[in-house]
């Protein structure tokens, strides 16, 4: 004979259904209904152990927007508390500002130094984006991500930067290489910035940044 031990099928094992059926006792409330009643009353009852893994589909209430005076003084570095709706435009502003800085960095006349400078600008941009989204920042990880993205998502971009940098050495092509380097650096920064914003908007962090899928 099979001695398999099975768990209870009834979720109200303490209820005496015999008395309920006979009309002597009241019908016990199902677990879900008890929870519902608690919510309606405003107090959330402690979830039973068995319901701990139930995913709630209700949206979390957004933080109330700050008063106008406070909003005016907000900078991107501190505005991550201002609510999810305002993060994306602030993030875009950060990206645009750093894209312009990168364009300026492209004008650095020293070969390879300008690439290092642009990388530093991008790292700073990611740092600010992390602060905006309230996420931890790890410089080494960001560097690896940037190298991974620039080297694979935009091979043309990196090669253009590299080529234009090398072109400084060639006499007579200075102005042209400056322009190309500047535009490519700006485009790289903007592209990386928007990709990271989309990544953070989905609730992810730098740790689970899928460089391969972004390529």
């Amino acid at each position, binding site marked *: 004979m099979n001695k398999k031990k099975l768990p209870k099928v009834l979720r109200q094992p303490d209820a005496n259904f015999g008395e*309920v059926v006979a009309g002597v006792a009241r019908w016990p409330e199902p677990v879900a209904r008890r929870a519902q009643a608690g919510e309606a009353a405003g107090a959330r009852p402690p979830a039973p152990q068995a319901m701990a893994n139930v995913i709630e589909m209700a949206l979390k209430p957004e933080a109330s927007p700050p008063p106008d005076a406070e909003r005016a003084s907000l900078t991107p570095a501190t505005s991550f508390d201002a609510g999810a709706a305002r993060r994306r435009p602030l993030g875009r502003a950060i990206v645009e500002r750093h894209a312009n800085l990168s364009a300026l960095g492209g004008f650095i006349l020293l070969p390879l130094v300008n690439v290092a400078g642009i990388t530093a600008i991008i790292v700073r941009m990611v740092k600010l984006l992390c602060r905006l989204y309230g996420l931890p920042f790890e410089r080494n990880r960001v560097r690896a991500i940037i190298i991974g993205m620039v080297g694979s998502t935009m091979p043309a971009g990196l090669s253009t930067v590299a080529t234009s940098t090398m072109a400084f050495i060639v006499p007579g092509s200075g102005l042209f290489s400056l322009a190309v380097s500047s535009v490519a650096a700006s485009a790289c920064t903007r592209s990386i910035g928007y990709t990271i914003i989309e990544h953070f908007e989905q609730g992810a962090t730098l740790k689970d940044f899928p460089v391969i899928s972004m390529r």
Partner: protein
Amino acid sequence: MTSSIITVATMKGGSGKSTLASCLAVHWHLGGRRATIIDTDPQRSIVRLAARERALGGVTVVEDATEEAWKAAKRHANGFGPVIIDTPGFRSQSTLACLFMTDFVLVPVKPSPFDVDRMVDTLNLLTNGVSGRRPLFRCVLTQTTRDSVIAKHVRAELTEAGFPVLKSEMTNRVIYAEAALWGATPSLIERTGAAARDIAAIADEVEDILNVSRAVVA
């Protein structure tokens, strides 16, 4: 049980309501009673079954998925045979109305936690939700695997908890689906087969309960 109204109800789909209703009706019909089925399910399972070749052996089928279905049941209960109401697998006004005026409710339940949960909900509705009226009811295990641990486990637990469960049960057999291809039930295809015996046992238990109930009232 000359013209009792029996409602087969549970708020869980796929529990075997239509199969149970049609099998009981055909069984009583073959026994010489004029059984009628009221199909209140918008899925029209029994109506579709009756449209096939064997047409449920000639059992009268009335299609009425409105809130007035109980009136049709009352009309046909004035005859000489039982009226069986097949209800939809969800909470509906037609089901509530039928539960209000029925003589007996059969609650089919498969031996699974999903079905048991919905059975409990249905019985809650039966005992609390129908205008204070408490109709006579029994649970019946359906689609069970013979001698399976889970079927025994569920039966034991329901009985222990105080739920009235019929001793007989509808064991899962391929003949139900095969018979349905002909618009029939096992009682029509194989009168002395195991499935037909299961149905007869359930029908006998229901009759006994109704007879005892009537004797008590008288």
